[in-house]
């Protein structure tokens, strides 16, 4: 157990956003003030956030935490109504309506000596604290970060500071290795026959591919699953995933699981559950934005 400052309770009326940065047209970062959460947060954990009183509860991985400053960092991709709306409304100085956590079982930071930490797209953010913790534990950390194109790259500097080696992959070859993170993984495995563990976080299709790539080598591969969630505290079962023969709840049994046991196809089907409602909600919201801009 990592030693920490003594707990002090403070009440928050709302959760203030201290810093806001845009990493690309779709990816943005929020640094939220919550000293108690910053104190308690461990790599691998997430929060559930509501941006306003009639909003959805959405899970967001804690991408970084600063215990001195008392803040946690969330990196968000604007893909649906809620995240697109937050992209507009969540500026520095505004506040989130609800934020609860840190949820999930903290990542088990092992005594692995040589590890590969893989982040695909937005997955770069949640893998950062795990990579840092492994580095602090004395491991040799190879970072593999994958983006679609050069313009979407973020946190390269942060990773260079904590990784012994960094492999950047872009799908279109505009920077680093041309290809997917699996190409980066294979390159690293080819170079080091003694990889103890791999951590892969990103879209389900990427985590599935990464697990498939490492399976022939028998290297333990941990993934962090992102099913739809409502409460995040183990009482609705909406986030259930199939791991081996068992059904687990990602919010209280995860979110980290053994990538070689996870049924990714099932996860991807279940992620489509509200596709229609999401599409309609996004359209309605875009329409209302357009109408708000029309001069009276």
């Amino acid at each position, binding site marked *: 157990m990592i030693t920490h400052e*003594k*707990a*002090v*309770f403070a*009440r*928050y009326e709302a*959760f203030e956003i201290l810093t806001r940065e845009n990493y690309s047209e779709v990816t943005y970062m929020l640094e939220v003030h919550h000293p*108690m*959460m910053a104190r*308690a947060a461990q790599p691998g*954990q997430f929060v559930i956030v*509501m941006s306003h009183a*009639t*909003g*959805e*509860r959405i899970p967001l991985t804690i991408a970084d935490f600063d215990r001195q400053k008392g803040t946690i960092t969330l990196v968000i991709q604007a893909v649906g*109504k*809620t995240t697109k709306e937050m992209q507009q409304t969540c500026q520095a100085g505004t506040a989130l*309506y*609800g*934020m*609860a*956590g*840190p*949820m999930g*079982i903290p990542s088990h930071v092992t005594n692995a000596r040589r590890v590969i930490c893989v982040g695909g797209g937005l997955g770069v953010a949640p893998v950062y604290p795990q990579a840092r913790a492994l580095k602090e534990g004395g491991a040799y950390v190879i970072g593999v970060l994958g983006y679609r194109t050069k313009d979407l790259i973020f946190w390269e500097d942060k990773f260079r500071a904590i990784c012994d080696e960094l492999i950047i992959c872009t799908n279109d070859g505009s920077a680093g290795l041309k290809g997917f993170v699996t190409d980066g993984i294979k390159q690293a495995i080819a170079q080091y026959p003694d990889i103890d563990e791999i951590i892969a976080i990103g879209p389900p299709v990427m985590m599935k591919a990464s697990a498939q790539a490492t399976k022939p080598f028998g290297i333990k591969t941990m993934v962090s699953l992102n099913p739809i969630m*409502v*409460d995040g*505290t*183990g*009482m*609705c*079962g*909406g986030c*259930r995933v*199939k791991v081996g023969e068992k*059904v687990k*709840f990602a919010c*209280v*049994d995860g979110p980290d699981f053994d990538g070689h046991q996870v049924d990714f196809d*099932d996860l991807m*089907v*279940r992620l*489509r*559950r*509200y596709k229609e*409602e*999401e599409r*309609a*909600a996004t359209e*309605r919201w875009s329409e209302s934005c357009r109408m708000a801009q029309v001069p009276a």
Partner: protein
Amino acid sequence: MAKKRTVRTIPQERIPVSELDPFIRARNFEEVNCGYTESEAIRESERCLFCPDPKCIDGCPVSINIPAFIQKIGERDFRGAYDIITATNLLPAVCGRVCPQENQCEGVCTVGESLVSVAIGRMERFVGDLAITNGWINKPYIQPSEFKIGIVGSGPAGMACAADMAKAGCDVTVFEAFHEAGGVLRYGIPDFRLPNTVVDAEIEKLEQLGVKFECNTLVGRLFTIDEMIEELGFDAVFIGTGAGYPTLLGIPGDSLNGVLSANELLTRCNLMRARDFPNVDTPLPLGKHVVVVGAGNTAMDALRVSKRLGAETVACVYRRSKNECPARAEEVHHAEQEGIEFHWLANPVDILGDGNGNVRAVRCIHMELGEPDDSGRRRPVPIPGSEFEIETDEVVYAIGTNANPIIGQTSKLKLNKRGYIETDSNLMTSMAGVFAGGDIVTGAATVIEAMGAGRKAARGMKDFLGIRDIGPLRIDRSLFGIDAREHNFMRVRVGA
């Protein structure tokens, strides 16, 4: 001296209560049971025999002095009735609505032996609602003690413990993981049975007693139970985190889109108000043909919510018969009135998909009752070859729950084999000063039992901390020229 009542002299029929028309109410979330008017409540109070040995008091899990409050109703002293009820039951507006009275007070009522029992629950609800409308609160003079109490979970168990400890002068904070307090009263029980406005009113009364509610606080993860005692300065802690972890059937097709737990359906609908989607952001699964597996109160809620959300057909599949069904009788009755179909003695074996990951039908098998199992109920046994299919696009599981795992995961509290917290007879856990009660100890039970546990734990807590409780002040005549009705009394400690 009033003429002594007998079964023959009292009104023979129970005074009926107005209810919304089933056809209309099945499309909205208005409260179905409209409650008694004043004259109806008084008339119903005339049916109580004031038995010399009232069995109803023992039938109540918290032993409310039922004949006494009924007598006050008869005397039109509604405030007095409220005082009597709240001496033991904190939330009459809630319990009058959701207690399974037919298995408790009304089930042992003497009048019920020859006629329909006295409508104790409806009268309790009448008093509770009047208290909310009139803003009554029994706020005794509270002498502050120096003790700080933490309550984990803002459901009925936590609320009851909080109220008692606040009345004993302690500094009480209730922690809630959700963004709104109330626990199962908020997320689980729908508005047409227990309006959220009633839950709000009861929470406000607790705040008036000095109880603080902190939402968005996930105890166990944001800080642990250990940290509460060792670092955050709490002198005692009560854990009322409930048993919300849903049980799944474990049959093929469980994870198809359109299969969900009743907890998920109800949380989306009640807490997240998804029934107002798209005016709120949380979506709901809106099946045309909904099947709910199970026949407890949660199943009834899921069935009736689905009806109101616009499903064309709503059916219940339960593996035992109607006689063994555990739901509150009024809920089953209301569900039938609202046009919900019941498939008794049937159990799902397989959920069939449409090839795109969505549910299209559930294959069930007929059951018959065999030998009794450990609970004493006859065990249902499948009848071979009797499979049948029900076309459905939404299957809701309401077949039971398990302990919430978070406190168990984040503390060294002793748990039993099934993950519930072990307590001694004073509801203290294996950690000194840490108490637990409600579903997290007993498994899924009722609101009134949870409240009873909260109160019992409060007694244990006061004992542990050495708080000498003077007890509630009962004044029923005027003293020093001050009328009891003025509620103007202050409790003063004399001597050292």
